[in-house]
Structure formats: structure tokens, C-alpha cells
């Protein structure tokens, strides 16, 4: 098991290295000149060259990439050019390993950007995950138990109905009515735990969390329903019934346990994706999380930020996959390596 995990981690690291190169290459081949973009429209040519040099874009792709990897491994100092650092010591910023780069636009290291944005995204994601997993699985089991009845149709139809609305619409609706008109929840705005305590933090997250959860819940309801129905028709369920085991225990101990395996797989990937991908929700509620950071960076051709985010989010997906595989072994004894 340990050897297996080590192998997986090594493969994961190699994938991240490859990903960073691909992002670098794609970025450099794109028609917009980042130096020109960051310098502005009415920029004289020599100023562009200067900016290009300051940003390090004048160097060959492989060298830039190598510098980046070196930064990740041992840390760097910015600006990249040594002469510039000596000329303007007040501009020098230290970026400790693992240094993901320095954003010229935002005038801070990518690590600092992420450190600011990540807690917001993680908070929203956690609240959303708790809502959608609890209600998704609960409603899914409910629909499976009452298969073919009004309850089944109501649950499946209801979640699909919610799912059918675009996220920005659900979010806007919630802000308009629940927060502003009815005042049930406070107007959205991120409050860190350190400032408002857990209660305030959670309260502020309910609306964006719910908005994000609505998107995923429909899928979980349907999947849970299908998996529970599938396992309810298995032979071992008949065995459990023929032993005289009570209905509830047959459902939760025997059927749901077997349905968990595919749900855990889905959950791992969705959670990793939602950490960095809640772009619409973050925009609607104006929470400066990773999703919004990524959109801004893309619009500004902010390469260091883009590379940093791609690696972070890619890394999350890889880690989530490894965790899912470990969970598999815990759930299913047949997967355990003897």
C-alpha cells in the first residue's frame, strides 16, 4: 500500500511538471504579446522591450520554464533580472520555495495571491460539499426506496428543476430575495473565521454554498438512486433479507455501503474541481476566490498566476484521485493489497 501511494505521488509530480510545460508553451504561442499587453496601448517599442526583459519573456521558453521549476524547488527573487534588482532594491520581493511565480499586474507573488484567495474558495466548497452530499445522498436513497412513487418523481424532478436553472440565476435570485428582500441571510460577503467566528463565517457562506450545491446535488441524487437500486437487486441483499435483517439495516448497512464506492469516486473529483472551479458562484456573490482569480489572470495575460493556478488545481485533482484510491481500499476489502 505504501509503495503504491509513493508510486502514485511520483507519477502525480511528473504529471504536474508536464502540465507546467504545456501551459508555458501554450501561453508563449498565443498571438497576444504579454509584454505589450502589460505595458499598455501607447507604449514605445523600447519600453516594450524593457518590460519584456523585466518580465523575463525575452528568454527562450525552455529557460523560462527551467527558472520556474527552479523557483518551485528552491525559491526565487523578483524581478528576475539581477541588474534590475540591484538598481531598484525597493522593488525586490522574496518568493520562498515552492515559489509559483510573481504577478507583475498584481505586484505580489502567486503564492500570496493563492494564500488570499484559497481560504475563500475552500470555505465555499466545504459548505457546498456538505450540503450537496448530505442532501444528495439522502434524497437519492429516498427516491430509491420509494421508486416509482410520487416521492421518487418529486425528488428527482425537483432537483432536476433546480439544476436546470443557470447558476448565476439561482445565485442572483437568492441574493435578491433571501438576502435583500426577506433578510433571512446577511448580504453576501466573505468574513474569515478569525474576524467573525465560525457562526458568522458559516452564515455568510450559506447562500453561495447552497447555490453551488444545487448544481451538483441533482447528479448525486440520480447517481445515489441508481446505485442504491442496483445494489438492492443484488443477491446479498436477498441474503440479508432472508436472514431477517430489518429493512432499514438492509438499506443502510448492506445496500448503501455497496453504493458508496462509485459515489466516493465522483465525490473526490467533484470536490477537487469545485475548489477552483466555482467561478460563476464566486462572481455572482463577489467572493474573491480561486475561480475569480483565474478569470482575472486569464483576462490580463498574467502568465505566472495562470501557471500557478493550473498547477495548484491540477495538483488538487491528482491528490483527490490518490485519496479516492486509498478510500477505495478502506471501503472495499477486495481492493486491499494483501
Amino acid at each position, binding site marked *: 500500500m505504501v509503495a503504491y501511494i509513493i508510486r502514485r505521488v511520483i507519477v502525480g509530480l511528473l504529471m504536474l511538471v508536464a502540465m507546467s510545460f504545456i501551459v508555458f508553451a501554450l501561453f508563449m504561442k498565443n498571438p497576444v504579446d504579454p509584454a505589450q499587453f502589460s505595458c499598455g496601448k501607447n507604449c514605445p517599442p523600447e519600453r516594450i522591450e524593457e518590460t519584456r526583459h523585466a518580465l523575463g519573456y525575452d528568454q527562450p521558453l525552455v529557460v523560462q520554464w527551467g527558472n520556474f521549476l527552479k523557483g518551485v524547488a528552491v525559491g526565487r527573487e523578483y524581478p528576475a533580472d539581477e541588474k534590475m534588482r540591484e538598481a531598484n532594491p525597493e522593488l525586490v520581493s522574496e518568493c520562498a520555495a515552492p515559489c509559483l511565480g510573481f504577478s507583475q499586474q498584481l505586484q505580489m507573488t502567486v503564492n500570496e495571491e493563492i494564500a488570499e484567495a484559497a481560504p475563500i474558495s475552500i470555505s465555499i466548497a466545504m459548505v457546498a460539499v456538505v450540503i450537496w452530499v448530505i442532501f444528495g445522498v439522502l434524497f437519492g436513497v429516498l427516491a430509491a426506496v420509494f421508486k416509482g412513487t410520487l416521492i421518487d418523481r418529486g425528488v428527482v424532478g425537483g432537483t432536476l428543476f433546480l439544476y436546470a436553472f443557470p447558476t448565476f440565476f439561482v445565485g442572483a435570485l437568492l441574493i435578491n430575495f433571501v438576502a435583500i428582500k426577506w433578510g433571512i441571510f446577511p448580504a453576501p460577503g466573505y468574513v474569515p473565521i478569525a474576524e467573525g467566528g465560525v457562526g458568522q463565517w458559516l452564515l455568510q457562506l450559506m447562500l453561495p454554498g447552497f447555490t453551488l450545491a444545487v448544481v451538483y446535488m441533482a447528479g448525486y441524487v440520480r447517481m445515489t438512486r441508481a446505485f442504491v437500486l442496483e445494489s438492492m437487486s443484488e443477491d446479498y441483499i*436477498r*441474503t440479508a433479507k*432472508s*436472514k*431477517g*435483517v*430489518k429493512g432499514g439495516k438492509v438499506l443502510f448497512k448492506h445496500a448503501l455501503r455497496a453504493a458508496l464506492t462509485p459515489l466516493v469516486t465522483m465525490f473526490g473529483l467533484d470536490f477537487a474541481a469545485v475548489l477552483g472551479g466555482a467561478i460563476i458562484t464566486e462572481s455572482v456573490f463577489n467572493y474573491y476566490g480561486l475561480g475569480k482569480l483565474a478569470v482575472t489572470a486569464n483576462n490580463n495575460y498574467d502568465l505566472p498566476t495562470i501557471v500557478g493556478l493550473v498547477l495548484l488545481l491540477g495538483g488538487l485533482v491528482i491528490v483527490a484521485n490518490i485519496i479516492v484510491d486509498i478510500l477505495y481500499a478502506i471501503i472495499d*476489502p*477486495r481492493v486491499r493489497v494483501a
Partner: protein
Amino acid sequence: MTDLSKTPEATPAKGGAFLSVRDLKVHFTTSDGIVKATDGLSFDLERGKTLGIVGESGSGKSVSSSAIMGLHRGTNAMLSGEILLDGVDLLKVSNEDMRKRRGRDVAMIFQDPLSAMHPYYTVGNQIMEAYQVHNDVTKREARKRAIEMLDRVGIPQPDRRVDDYPHQFSGGMRQRAMIAMGLINNPSLLIADEPTTALDVTVQAQILDLLQDLQRDFDAAIIIITHDLGVVAEMADDVLVMYAGRAVEYGPGKEILTNPEMPYTWGLLSSVPDLTASTEAKLIPIRGNPPSLLNPPPGCPFEPRCDHTAKVGGDLCRTTLPDLTPANSGGSHVKRCHIKNADEVYEAEILPEIAPDLVED
């Protein structure tokens, strides 16, 4: 439809039988119509005795046994008739009452022990669960009992194997564990649904031996469902041959196997390879397929596949369902066939083909 209560009863033990199934019908409503999976089945079984139910796939064997276990509750199956176990009609008791009887009074073991056991729980956990459902005992006591049962069914090192998962057991051991699970509460009735079909031939004999052995110890009634006539010959006191949801021949096992009077039973016997028989003995499959239970033929359900309808003459086989009537060989042997001299036909036509050795004697 035949009213079986008017036809002669099969076994001599009437009314007082330990298990008495009367005119059991299990019908399923589907979008295409009503499927009559079991249509008027009656039999009796005493404690310590074994009934073999034989028939092709889809003849209603498993559906009938699931009805005895009450496993159709909560589905769209419609059941009628009576299933009297020790005088209590299992079709009339409440769901909760039936649940309590399941595993305690009636237990069941299944065809494929790998899929019949939950892959995520240890063998011990599953056996303990069967015990703890019906007995208010601590985990430690249940575990002790599970180890005892595993030992009783012949699992080596039961105190260690109890913590193994089903996939770590061999096929035969899994079936032994299933038997341990079924018998842990001393049920008075054990239904074995093709218990040896999924097993190695060498293991089959061991499992059958074990069942017989345990039956003596626990004095349980056993219903063994199979399509293997060898299993029937080995195990069964009584044999019930089912076809298209109905009994077509029923009586003492020896009687059915030596003097069958229904062409379907002949067909089953002809399809059994016999190791000791001469090479002249023919292996004759029954032609055709079992009829759809959605639209069964109006007459004898076996008529489309029967080679002997000419002996009846006229349209009788095609238009009229034969009643279960006493066989010519007498005793409690009953058959559902229009052929008057079926015993003579069997000796003259069937026996020489399937067992030439016997005829020369």
C-alpha cells in the same frame, strides 16, 4: 384453471404436515399482462424430510421458495393460497412477524455463494448478523457461536477464517459458510436453492453430505431446488417436478425416478448423463423451450414439446389442462398427464433408450 384442493393429495400426511403449501399462486403484474410464475402449487413436508423440487429455469421453483420466505413482500407480486408452517399461514402474518420468522424458522441458502455474500463484510460479521437479529446476545457471544457453526460445517481454523472476507474463501467454503449462516438459528425449514450448481463436482458431493448430516442433527425439513436429478436421487424423500408454474408430477423420490409417468419427467431423465450406463444409452435433450408464462398454451403446457401427444388422441392435450391424478403405479404418486397407460409407455419406449442395461435385467 385447476382447483388443486379438489384433486387428490399427494403425500399421506394431510393437515398435520409440518409445512403444508396449498394452491400457492404467485402472479406478477407486468406491462404486458399477468405472469403466472407459480400457478396452484401444493405439497407437504415433514420435519427431517427432504423435498426435491425439479424443473427447468423459469418453471417457478425459485419464485415458489421465495414465497415461502416471504421475499415477495413489498414487490408487485400477488400471492394467494396457503403456506402453513407448523399451522401458521405465512401469507397471513404481518410483515414484521414474517421478518422475525425469516432466518429463525425458515432459512435459505442460495445458488451462487459469492454473490450471495456481501463483498464488503467479513464472513464472520455476516454470520454473526444472522444470529444477532434473532438473539439478544453480545458481539462476543455471537462471534463464539459463528466460530462454532463454521467449525460444524467443516471450515478449518474457524477462529481465524471467521475474519476473512468472502473473496478469500473458496467456492465450497463459501457455500459451507452460507449453510452455517442459514442454520445458526436452528431453523425448522431450510430452503436450498440450487446449492451445488455453482460448485465443483467434487465439492458438490461434500456439500450434499454436509446438508444430510446437518439435517439429522437439526431435524430440519429441507426443500432442495435443483435441476440436477442426481442431487434429487441423493437427497430427496419426495420429489416435485415443476413445469410452467405447476406441479406436473409429485410423489416419493424413488417412485418418481424409477416409474415416472409424465413425458416431461421422462425428458429430464433422458437428459441426464449416466457414468455407469452403456455407451448405447442416449442423451436426449427436450426439444423446444419452456412456454411463456405470460401466455401459456390453453391445454397441457408441455404439449408443444411433447412427443407422445398421439397416444392421447384428438385435441385433448392441446385444449385441456390435465388434472393431477393418481399415477398407475399407485401409492401417493400423482401426475399431470392425459396418457392413460403412461407406465407401459415408459417401460416400452423410454427406458430402453435411456438405460438399456436396466431393460435386459
